[in-house]
C-alpha cells in the first residue's frame, strides 16, 4: 500500500476553497471570554503551566469531524484541558470530581 507522507493535516487548510466569507463581528459568550482569559493566565505565569504551541498541537490533534463540529473556543477548552492533564497541573480524578460538582450545582439551580 502506498502512503502519502506529504499529506496535509486537516487544520492546515490555507489555499483551499472556502466559499463566501461574511466579514461580521462575533459576539462572545461569557464562557468563551473565560476560556480566553484562562489561556492568557496559564501561558504567562512563571513558570508557565502550558504553551500556546501546546494549545495549537491539541487542537490540531482533533479528528477532522470533531474539528469541524466544535466551535472555536470549544476546541480551545478541549486542548487546554488535555495540556493541563499532560503537564500534571490537573489530574483526571480532580477534573472528574469537579465536573460532577458543577453538574449537580447546575441541576439544582435549574429547578
Amino acid at each position: 500500500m502506498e502512503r502519502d507522507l506529504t499529506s496535509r493535516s486537516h487544520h492546515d487548510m490555507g489555499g483551499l476553497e472556502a466559499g463566501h466569507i461574511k466579514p461580521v463581528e462575533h459576539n462572545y459568550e461569557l464562557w468563551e471570554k473565560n476560556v480566553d482569559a484562562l489561556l492568557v493566565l496559564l501561558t504567562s505565569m512563571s513558570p508557565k503551566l502550558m504553551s500556546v504551541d501546546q494549545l495549537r498541537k491539541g487542537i490540531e490533534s482533533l479528528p477532522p469531524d470533531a474539528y469541524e463540529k466544535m466551535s472555536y473556543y470549544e476546541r480551545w477548552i478541549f486542548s487546554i484541558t488535555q495540556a493541563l492533564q499532560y503537564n500534571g497541573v490537573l489530574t483526571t480524578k480532580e477534573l472528574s470530581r469537579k465536573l460532577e460538582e458543577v453538574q449537580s450545582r447546575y441541576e439544582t439551580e435549574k429547578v
Partner: protein
Amino acid sequence: MIPLFQTGNAVRVRKGSPPGHIRTPFYVRGCKGVIERVAGEYRNPEELAFGRFDTPVVPLYRVRFQQQEVWPDYQGSPQDSLDVEIFEFWLEPANPEKT
C-alpha cells in the same frame, strides 16, 4: 546561533508532513523563495508543543515567494508575492538559476 542564510539567499522549503506540530504551512512546502530578512531567533514551536519549554533558540526567517510559484493557477499579477515566516530547519539552499 549564527543564521545559515542571509537576506537575498535563494531557499527551498523542505517537503514532508511528519506527525507533530508544524508551523510551516502545507502550501509552501516544496516551494522556492528568497530570504526577505532574518527575523530573529526563537524557541522551536515543534518542541514547545510537546511541553519542552527550554530548548535552544533557532533562527526564523521571513521568506518571500512569488504567488505564481505557490499557486500554479494564480490569476493575479506576476509581481504578486507572499511572505511567510519559516524556521531555519525547514529551509535548504536553492540554486536561484534553476526552478
